[in-house]
């Protein structure tokens, strides 16, 4: 069992957990959290498959880095929307 397989299992485990939570939960904050966990799982899968005899490929690393930055932007936007929805519900 190579170390890549271990991390591939971890990554797909995260994807499965996030999918389960997304399908069963209504709370906005928890949904955002699950989407983040989903993205992290995909990131691990990507990089685990990019490993080739000890050296990791530079291009997928750039992809995942871009993905992380994009994800934080979308998360911030989602949370801003959620806060405003909540505030309007108060008024």
């Amino acid at each position, binding site marked *: 069992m190579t170390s890549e397989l271990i991390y591939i299992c971890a990554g797909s485990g995260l994807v499965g957990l996030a999918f389960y939570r997304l399908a069963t939960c209504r709370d906005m904050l928890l949904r955002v959290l699950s989407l983040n966990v989903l993205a992290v799982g995909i990131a691990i*899968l990507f990089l685990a*498959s*990019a490993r080739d005899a000890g050296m990791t490929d530079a291009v997928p690393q750039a992809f995942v880095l*871009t*993905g992380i930055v994009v994800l934080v932007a*979308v998360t911030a*936007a*989602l949370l801003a*929307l959620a806060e405003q929805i909540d505030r309007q519900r108060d008024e």
Partner: protein
Amino acid sequence: MSDISLLVLLPLLAAVGAATTPRTSGIWGLTATALTATLAVWLTLDVFQDGARYIAISGWVAPLGIVLVADGLAALMLLMTSGVGVIVAIQAASWGVFPSSCASKDAESLRAGFWPMWLATLGAMNALFLSGDLFNIYVAFEILGLTAVGLTALSGTRSALRAAFDYLSAGLAGSLLLLLGVALAYGAIGRVDLAAVPMLADTIAGRIALAFIVAGLAVKAALFPLHFWMPEAHSSATPVASALLSALVVKGALYVILRISIEGGAGMEALRFALAVMGAAAMLWGAWGALRATRLKLLVAQSTVAQIGLITLAIGVAGDNLQQNGLWQAAALLMLSHALAKAAMFIAVGRIAEELGHDRISGLNRKELRPGAAEFAFAIASVSLIGLPPTAGFIGKWILIDGLIARDAWIWVALILIGTALSAAYLSRVVSRCLRGGPHVAANAHHPAWRIGDITALGLATSALVLGLASALPLGLLEITAK
């Protein structure tokens, strides 16, 4: 500075400018949109003369670098976006983004938000159409997802914000599916450029990757059954935002599905069949939703679901480029005609709602109000959407049905005809109530006053009509493929 790079960078720079100076954002918006439209025309003429063009960014060719490709299909999409964009932008400028019934103190901050969002949408869509790399397409979709949500959330009402949140969550889920597909594609063949899609379609791992990619795109294109976020989003946005969302933003995802299908070759048959089935289901489901809708905007949004189904059906049955059957050109033409007609419809609906004060379909025939230009624009746009001659919608459907008959695919033909009949049914709900005369109208009925909204809506609707007569031009453009 070539036109290809300016097509993306000019709108983005103008977006920065509009964001910095909110008071003059309208000027940034209008000039940038007009300039982008000119660039798109220039590029199209260039492609007509000299064939498809490539730019290898930074001098590195694929697969290491990113390649921008401008062939006939891309040029057509660029023209569509800029053309519809210019007219909708004029509309937005005149309305101040909102119909005049809105409080003026909000109007300025709304204007300040609209223009950067629209310009970023334009830049992102252009980047999408020109891109030749799957990961690049993913990043462009991220921009597009955020700008579309921004356009939805502009009006600030509770339903708009809720719809925007659902839209963004669905968009993120779609993007993650797309990213997962790109990761699997990398795992299968080690590269992610579009030219490698035929290689993907040849292996099992590659086909799974393509399935994930198309699934992510289907979420973004609001294809049934992944369309749940769409009707609310498009109907609670302001009319200008709805026009942009329905007419342009969904086309981005449909374009990429079409592009992948064309490149994919024979290995994608199962995927294409699935697309065709979902498209047919979407046509029927959207029509059902439109028949039951009580509000005008919701009806138009459901009709978008149905039309997206039709376009996806066309992509699914078209097969790949090698079969030389030209059906994928029908899909492209249907995209174009739908963009024109749907933008016209949403602007017309905005005007109708402005005059009446509400947009309930049951309350459309008020005795004191004669039908005005907006109602006529709606009717002409309906003609194109249903697909009656001589509109572009008719030409697209004709090519599609003709090709299907030639292949003895009677079930698909029957489904398309049922879809057409249903669209005639739900659109006539509106048109029959709007356009009335004779004994139904009171003696002292008056015409609503003319506004720019009427002119823009009529302009868009008429171009959908006229495009059918001039359809040789877009079809000729589509012939220019990148090889």
